[in-house]
């Protein structure tokens, strides 16, 4: 029920985008893994008529190793300015965007900064923002994409300690499919 509510709310929030762009943008269903969006995630995406703007809402689940699974909602936006075409195959070379993830959890201090006696002691742990890069290959109604994401906390650590963080280890890659109608 909670999932349905989230999807409904997010669709309402995003619907002005689809009207602003054009009536002929594409809606698609999406499924994928990784890039901080969940071990498995499903969602709905809207791609603008010029194929440069994509917004996706998804629900991701990652198997918990200590009992309960990690459930999260993701709101993703990416901008892919450059594309190449080979007949019916179209490639968006490099997309750049953001992912906002919300953890559906009541684990300690997830909600919380204000639970600590000193207000704002902990940073908000329920929401995480990731920087997103992507490649997409589109053939008719099918889009295959590869994502990789950099978590906000890691980006801050990289900025503060540029020589002391292994740059390759900080990325999370992922991939998935979209089917439009």
């Amino acid at each position, binding site marked *: 029920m909670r999932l349905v509510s989230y999807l409904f709310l997010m669709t309402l929030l995003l619907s002005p985008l689809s009207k602003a762009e054009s009536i002929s943008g594409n809606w698609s269903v999406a499924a994928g893994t990784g890039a901080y969006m969940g071990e498995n995630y499903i969602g709905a995406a809207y791609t603008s008529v010029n194929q440069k703007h994509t917004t996706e809402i998804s629900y991701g689940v990652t198997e918990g190793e200590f009992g309960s699974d990690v459930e999260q909602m993701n709101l993703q936006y990416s901008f892919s300015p450059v594309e190449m075409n080979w007949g019916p195959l179209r490639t968006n070379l490099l997309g750049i965007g953001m992912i906002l993830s919300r953890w559906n959890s009541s684990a300690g201090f997830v909600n919380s900064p204000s639970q600590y006696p000193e207000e704002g002691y902990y940073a908000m742990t329920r929401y995480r923002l990731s920087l997103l890069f992507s490649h997409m290959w589109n053939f008719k109604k099918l889009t295959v994409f*590869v994502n990789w994401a950099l978590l906000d906390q890691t980006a801050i650590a990289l900025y503060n300690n540029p020589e002391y963080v292994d740059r390759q280890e900080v990325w999370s890659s992922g991939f998935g499919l979209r089917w439009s109608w």
Partner: protein
Amino acid sequence: MSSKVPKKDIYFLSILLIAVGMFFLSACAPIRPSPFAEKVLTPLQNSNAITIEQIQNQSQTFSENSRPLRLALIADSHSNYRDLDLTINKINQEDIDFTVHLGDMTELGLAIEYEAAASLLSRLQKPWLTVIGNHDAVGNGRNIYRKIFGSENQVFDSRGYRFIIFNNNQLEYMDTGLSWAWLRYQITNSALPVVLFQHANPFNTDNFSSDQIQEIQSILKLPRLRAVFHGHLHSFQQSFFHSVFIQQVSRTEGQSYALVELGSHSLNVQQCEGGHCEARQLSFPDDSAAEPAQ
């Protein structure tokens, strides 16, 4: 004939080059499913228990005439990897037996933060142990801690001392409570003098209720307890509670760490910061003097 390349082509080729570079990157980058999950890529598992075994094996090679036991203490590195790394370089130059990180090796208890801290701490050339900090226990942090380092509470005997690693993060463990009875038992039933490592300062009124502080005070009065080492407040501080020496260790910023030499009747502490160390020699009061190591 002009060789000028159109701007549009340069733009396109630049994007193509970046894209190819990103392809290589994505081929190498691991799939991290969720920022909130317990999945970690570090090979470390149950690291504290393995290290304790290693320390105990090493201690068997020491004779009565060996030098006193020496430890290095660091705390509250959070995501300050630069200073943690520089501090580790300094500790690697010291003649010590083992190092203890007194907690808060992360900011939000995320798996990727644990991985970065564990990766740097693995550069320590001597055995190292960790204590869980309050930041490490946020969200799924305590599960990740257990996976990498094992139980939050550990006890071991080495070179005439009993060492206890104790989780005293009261607020973050409100749901399960802390193991005060276990701690009291380990101190009371020790034939050896006891040294306690924990994250939070024992009398922190933000963490503990007045009833809990009374309980803590009664534990600190147990006759075998000699010293408590903790972090949490990001600065150096030394004090005594009755006959128990309490050392607060500063955060790693500025390459801060403490060196401790534990004799059978004395304690030598050096507080180091920015390459400069300040020593303090302390004697245990006679009425609580430790028995010589067996």
